[in-house]
């Protein structure tokens, strides 16, 4: 789980009373966008903040749902718990992978330098 934006109210365990609705403002949207690695155009921020607030109003209704105490995480039926043997198999070749990459040198994907010139 990613570290979240600073919550304005204490966290609340599942199945108990809901957290108070967070304050939805541009700063919160910026922080969530940073977590999501999304560059958000400042000109769009007011509209996006309002849309974000309205969507959280909608989904915040889960707080009012009466969930039986026994309800836990959704588990797949046994018929779906079928893993194939953990054995090597055919996979995509280097050419297929590099063909769809934004940049490659023929042998490797080219990625931006991120540790500085000393490397």
């Amino acid at each position, binding site marked *: *789980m*990613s*570290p*979240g*934006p*600073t*919550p304005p109210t204490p*966290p*609340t*365990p*599942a*199945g108990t009373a*809901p*957290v108070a609705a967070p304050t939805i403002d541009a700063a919160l*949207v910026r922080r*969530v966008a*940073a*977590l*999501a*690695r*999304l*560059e*958000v*155009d400042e000109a*769009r921020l007011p509209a*996006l903040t309002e*849309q*974000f607030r*309205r*969507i*959280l109003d*909608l*989904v*915040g*209704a*889960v*707080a009012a*749902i009466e*969930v*039986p105490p026994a*309800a*836990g*995480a*959704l*588990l*797949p039926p046994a*018929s*779906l718990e*079928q*893993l*194939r043997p953990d054995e090597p198999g055919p996979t*995509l070749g280097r050419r297929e992978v590099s*063909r*769809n*990459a*934004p940049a490659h040198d023929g042998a490797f*994907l080219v*990625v*931006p330098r*991120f540790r500085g010139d000393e490397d």
Partner: protein
Amino acid sequence: MAHALDLPVAEMARRVRDPRDPLTARVLVDESLRRIEALDGRVKAFLHVAPDLARAQAGAVDAAVTAGRDPGPLAGVPLAVKDNLEVAGLPLTCASRMLAGYVAPRDATAVARAVAAGCCVVGKANLDEFAMGSSTENSAFGPTRNPHDLARVPGGSSGGSAAAVAARMVPLALGSDTGGSIRQPAALTGLVGFKPSYGRVSRSGLVAFASSLDQVGPLARSVEDAALLFRAMRGHDALDATTRRDVEAACPLPSLAGLRVGRVAELELGERPDAGTAAALARARAALAGAGAHEVELSIPLAGAAGLPIYYIVAPAEASSNLARFDGIRYGLRVPGEGLEGLYAATRGQGFGAEVQRRILVGTFVLSAGYADAYYKRAMAARQALAAALEQAFTQADVLLTATTPTPAFRLGEKASDPLAMYLCDALTVPANLAGVPAISLPAGVDAQGLPIGLQLWARAGADEALLAAAAAVERLLATPSPLPALAREVGA
């Protein structure tokens, strides 16, 4: 005289398989391509048309017939594939700038099985970006239009697939349904759209939106056509660990006398329903009663107003995780930025459209520390309770009957600036995905404006064949076949 492309799919394929019949796969593919050429400039159902691939596949089918080999139950049937499913050698964009230029290195399992059954892929169909939307207006490459009224949306996210079948460019299309994305466009364009049980059709090669909800399924002009494509695709797949291993036999057409049809109070149309939709639902209920079906009144509170909040937590949460892979390093678009983080953010900020960004933001928020318990974990607990409530409901009813959508097709742009208004289009479809049960939308006539209306049947998880059989019986009872748009008559359909 109608072209063979307008025959029922079983009849079309039977004739192609018959070496004495002059109808060939190549004839069907050429007619499909001719119709696409004539109509798609206005409908914009396709993002990519693949005449070379389609003709090569048709050639293989015809060669098999000539050689005395069985080319499969869908021999020569032209197929449109939603552009979030891989077709080897064809572009795979998910209607996103993020994947512009991406070429699929392999076939999705569903596609490979359809082709092995004789289908010929004529192109990739438009969709809402990464399948997020209910109108196909979220495509980065422009919206698809409803063949019944070009000023209206075809629904979404499988809107291109629906429009291609509705305009009679192809008899079959593949879609994906995460919260109604097959059934809703099927309803708005007058088609049959089938979302199988979760796990019935492999998701391998389907670009993931919300992995616990996504399911591949057919759009067609009749239940029989949809069932043929479904049967060609279904079954366990080693490449998708969530595929079911149980095998269902086809069910005989049931008698409607005694069929228990559930009427769920929370899935009714509300106090001010759309008149045409309410009338179609009332007609269907009266017809079923007349045929001896028993209406069973049910209450499933979690399937009503709670469904959308649960869905719009679970689906964005999974989407925010699944779409993290699109970072400018491995696939498609790369936008330079300051440092590695800057490159990620710039690429994702410019590569994803507004709706995808909104859902990533919501998903990131509901999974973040301090909020995951209150939003995500609570939604998952509610989802579990909804699945249990539906399972209980199916001890009292064989199928549930609802409208597929609250209204017929709306105008392009009518809801585009209001995400919540768009989300409400999914109110009657998302619970089936949350519970993993099969659901099918059937044509139920048109309203006073000539716009198609769809009704929906659900069955218990795993009962796909029983649902298809019941749907075929209801289809025959209602006698409201897929309506033919005026536009399709231009090409002789």
